[in-house]
């Protein structure tokens, strides 16, 4: 097995992690629509069927509910199914199985059976896709007890977190930010080293402001932090990576230094994870705050067709405006 650190993209890191685990754990099976000969619509499973055979890398009939449901049956018998949905926008027929069964199997059998499943789905906007292809509804899943929701934002984290997700004894929804599938290359050693779940990553250190973002929005958030830096403002950038369960402690640690926070996500604002993060911050760190937590998010609208999707998606300018609102806030007149 190769351990050389090839420079690869995020989607290639997904393929590499799948290949590593298929090679090392015979209980792993990978299935979904068009993932075999075609290698998946984004090529995330490119070459895997050829290498590991059609018994372990399987094309399924076209039925997302079925894909979600058979994974439950497989997992209860000791397999480690990795199921691909072509797009997160198509995952909803499978909700019943993900929420009602995968997330609850361990609990309802008091540990007798479990569902070590990874449900993978490319998610988010910005690739000029048709309707229903660009949603970012991670909050629906993060709400569900028993599930893990994991979102990588770089090739290295995609590799390490996907390995961790497959090895985790519980179900994981692994959302891949398709807008940055091929945005950057990064050397990633194919050494089978997993990254920890339930841990936030500090992507950039700074003492003036905490910016929290995940998935593709990390790109614009880092760009905004660089822009602020030219103005003498150093922002700390945190990627929670596991959105549920959330590592709030790393965020609070950062707020001890910065006392100001902006949460960035491309999902709609209402009931989004920005609301959860802001609520937890005020519960745990109200006294630390010098300003209200700002949210820079998608609008509470339907994700528009692609001619208007850049209007919807939070870009660098909106993140900067959110940052400036947090930085410029001055409490007036005491109580």
């Amino acid at each position, binding site marked *: 097995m190769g351990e050389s650190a090839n420079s690869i993209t995020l989607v290639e890191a997904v393929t590499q992690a799948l290949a590593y685990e298929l090679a090392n754990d015979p209980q792993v099976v990978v299935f979904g629509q068009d993932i075999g000969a075609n290698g998946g619509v984004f090529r995330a499973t490119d070459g895997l069927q050829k290498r590991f055979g059609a018994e372990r890398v399987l094309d399924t009939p076209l039925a997302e509910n079925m894909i979600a*449901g058979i994974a439950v*049956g*497989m997992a209860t018998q000791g*397999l480690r*199914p990795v199921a691909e949905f072509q797009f997160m926008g198509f995952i909803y027929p499978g909700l*019943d*199985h993900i929420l009602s069964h995968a997330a609850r199997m361990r609990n309802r059998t008091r540990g*007798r059976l479990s569902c070590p499943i990874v449900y993978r789905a490319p998610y988010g906007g910005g690739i000029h896709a048709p309707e229903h292809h660009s949603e970012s509804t991670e909050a629906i899943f993060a709400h569900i007890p028993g599930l893990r929701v994991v979102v990588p934002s770089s090739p290295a984290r995609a590799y390490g977190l996907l390995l961790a997700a497959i090895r985790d*004894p519980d179900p994981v929804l692994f959302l891949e930010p398709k807008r940055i599938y091929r945005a950057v290359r990064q050397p990633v050693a194919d050494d089978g080293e997993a990254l920890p779940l339930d841990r936030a990553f500090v992507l950039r250190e700074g003492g003036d402001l905490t910016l929290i973002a995940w998935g593709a929005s990390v790109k614009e958030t880092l760009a905004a932090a660089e822009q602020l830096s030219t103005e003498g403002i150093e922002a700390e950038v945190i990627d929670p990576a596991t959105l549920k369960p*959330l590592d709030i402690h790393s965020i609070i640690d950062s707020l001890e230094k910065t006392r100001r926070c902006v949460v960035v996500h491309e999902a709609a604002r209402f009931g989004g994870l920005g609301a959860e993060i802001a609520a937890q911050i005020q519960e745990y760190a109200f006294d630390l705050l010098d300003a209200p937590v700002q949210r820079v998010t998608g609008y509470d609208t339907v994700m528009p067709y692609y001619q208007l999707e850049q209007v919807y998606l939070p870009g660098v300018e909106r993140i900067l405006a959110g940052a400036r609102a947090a930085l410029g806030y001055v409490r007036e007149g005491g109580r």
Partner: protein
Amino acid sequence: MHKPRLQLQASFDIAWLQYLDKQGSATQSLPEFASPDWLTHSFRQMQLARLVDDRAVKLQRTGRLGTYPSTLGQEAIGVATGNALMAEDVYCPYYRETGALLERGVSIEEILANWGGDERGQNYRHAPQDLPICIPIATQMLHAAGVAFALKYRHQQHGTPLQVAVASSGEGATSKGDFYEAMNLAGVWKLPVVFVVNNNQWAISVPRSAQTSTHTIAQKAIAAGIPALQVDGNDVVAVAWAVRDALRRARSDEGPALIEAISYRLCDHTTADDASRYRSGEELQQAWQWEPVARLETYLRGEGLWSDAKQQDLARELAQTMEAALNSWESRAPEPATAIFDHLYAQLPEGLYEQYDQLREELQGARE
């Protein structure tokens, strides 16, 4: 108007199987497995299921059990199915299957615990790989397809004997996409899975005629390219033959099957239901004329295999069994409240420590 010339492309038949007629007379010679021992065992288990049901309903009426779905009238299907499976096979039941669960080795205590609001009731000691009772409709059929894939995968990887997954459902479940999706995949992937549909004529208040316009439920399998059979579901021998034959073929890697077992739900849908709101007493009275327990008893007595003395002995034995199980269930120590966190994930995530501690403090406070 022009009429094109059409050519027959395909045609299908649905077969019906019965060994014991409504009066309990054999309509054909019984299969080999239906020995006196097997017949009397099945008779005992059907009566036990009926007794557990009866007590469970009474326990619900006195507030000691939550909502309970009785199996009354369908005992033959469950007992024949559960009995046909090998221990290593995997059963994926719906919620109306007390007879099958008993045959799988699930204890009466576990059944009572489950409906009594205690998750430990689905932690089967003697059926460690069986799926828990499925409450949402038809989802267990897809789980069974996934289980069957895993069983076939294990067989191919390790050369172990091919085991079979069996899913049960009511006929209302055949209105759902999961049912079609499971059969479709099972057909394409030639999975060792058997779907047993308890056609008890009523999906809560909606009659079979309002569920589907198909002549039989069995023919729905034709669309998935898998074999199907309709059996008299109140004839324990017929159900057993059908399930055994389907299991044998699945074990020989010949793929899936659907069995439609015609029966009748003699009870309310659950203890929360009142069937007199939507179906006639006359229909119910007629259905009692072909119920499975009396039918088998008539046959056994006709063959000289049963007597009043034997029935008295059995009734006494079953009552004792039930009483012992009831006592054991009622004397069981309650589960620690922290169990709601203990089994949510394999390991409690750090993000949940605070809530876990909060619960422990609340419990501590309640004790002080």
